[in-house]
């Protein structure tokens, strides 16, 4: 196959699939322009349309996807609003910048060093600090948790912009010894360390959720926008000592891991975190 550098996305380059993408006509609850928006957005994100590259013209898009000019314009208007394309009158539409990885990460292989470092690089404000009932769904997963916990909800900011909303559940007997100010600048890990309750192990779970009303408002995203959801279960020698749930804006924060092949042939998982 001949090497190619594509400056103008052709029909086949734009499609993720063999043949062309046909926006489904009638999907309940989804605006038609949204399919084109998503499609172009994906092409801009993965570099199929590279920075500075031209997008197909409006009439081209309308014909190709069998959409009205108005629908095409709505999709382009939204990309323009998001600062991802530039439209020059008479000259066409161009990709502004390609995908930029978020500014903040947590490297899981260095979790115990990076979490405190992240807390000192960023700012947080305590939204909630009170003893309350542990959510039943959480107790079902972690039966070791007491029925009541100190609940600490914080909004985390980096350079003034919110990137994560976290809720920590600390069993009452440990939580009642923690002053509110302790959370101004430190991670829960550090706070517990200072209480002499050293965390020896963390179970970290990552998935995606749709932003609910609270998360959407605090993180300044649309209701239903995709968020990265992390749950850290902190263990001391005596068992579970805290659970921290957080939802994060994926454009500002993500989770990384450096892995190496496990030398143990029969281990359940062939890969493990790289030793630092």
């Amino acid at each position: 196959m001949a090497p190619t550098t594509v400056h103008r996305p052709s029909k086949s380059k734009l499609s993720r699939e063999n043949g062309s993408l046909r926006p489904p006509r009638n999907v309940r609850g989804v605006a038609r322009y949204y399919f084109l928006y998503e499609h172009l957005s994906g092409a801009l994100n993965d570099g199929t349309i590279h920075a500075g590259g031209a997008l197909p013209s409006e009439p081209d898009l309308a014909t190709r996807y069998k959409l009205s000019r108005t629908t095409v314009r709505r999709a382009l208007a939204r990309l323009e609003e998001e600062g991802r394309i530039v439209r020059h009158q008479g000259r066409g539409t161009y990709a502004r910048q390609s995908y930029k990885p978020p500014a903040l990460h947590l490297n899981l292989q260095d979790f115990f060093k990076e979490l405190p470092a992240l807390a000192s690089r960023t700012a947080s404000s305590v939204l909630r600090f009170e003893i309350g009932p542990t959510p039943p769904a959480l107790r079902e997963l972690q039966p070791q948790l007491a029925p009541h916990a100190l609940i600490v909800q914080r909004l985390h900011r980096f350079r003034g912009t919110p990137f994560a909303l976290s809720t920590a559940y600390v069993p009452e007997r440990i939580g009642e010894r923690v002053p509110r100010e302790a959370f101004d600048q430190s991670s829960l890990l550090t706070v517990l360390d200072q209480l002499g309750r050293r965390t020896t192990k963390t179970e970290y779970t990552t998935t995606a959720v749709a932003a609910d009303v609270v998360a959407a408002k605090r993180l300044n995203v649309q209701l239903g926008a995709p968020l990265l959801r992390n749950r850290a279960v902190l263990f001391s020698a005596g068992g579970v000592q805290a659970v921290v749930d957080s939802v994060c804006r994926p454009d500002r924060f993500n989770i990384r891991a450096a892995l190496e092949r496990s030398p143990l042939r029969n281990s359940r998982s062939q890969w493990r975190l790289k030793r630092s």
Partner: protein
Amino acid sequence: MTRGTNAGGVTRYLRVYTVLSQALAQGDIGAGEALPSEPSLVHQYGVSRTTVRRALERLAAERSIVKRKGSGTFARNKIVRAASTRQTAAILDDPRNLATNTTVRVLEFKNTPAPEFLQREWPEFGPTVLTIRKVRYVDRKPVVLVTNYVPEEVGRQLTQRRLGNDTCLGALDKLGFHGASAEQEAGAVTADPFAARHLGIRVGAPVLNLKSLARDSRDRILRYANYLYRPDRYEIHTVVERDRPHRGHYTQSL
């Protein structure tokens, strides 16, 4: 949500539906528990009564909630979401299970020009890559849509038959290309129409996105993979030990 806009491209009713349906599945609203009243949902979400009713109607049609005249709306079934997510994840994470307990549908297996971002980030890939795109199912339910890019040199002996049910790295391992290190990045994205169709979810639904670059012991790139997981069926589970870092583990099978 601001009243009067559906700038998300997804209508208001569908977003209210998504968020309520997630709260029910996660147990934020427990089995048998009452949902907030219609007026209070109207207030909370900043939408019209009609929009709230449409969302509730859809949940009722799916039998997630039950409306009782005069007394309100209640969560119906008990969905232990996390447990089943963990079961699915455990099957997917055990390499010995992949061959027997999962099925794969290959959507694409061919040499293609390397996407622009690959050439830009890792010029070592060269102009042509073997692109393998497939969906993996557990109990016949789609869990992950993965796109692999393998440098032409590395993928030369790989055939669709040799790949079988294996992971791309697993198949390469058998051909003598042994993975030694990998860098991974987890994020969240919305399902585009292609992903939505193959994962059986709605367009715009949240999806767990994992990007992974694997190299051999001489630092040669073996493959780049982009995984899109259904978040209700999979989560990435990592254990980190503080004093014995070598004991920690990462469960995903690559």
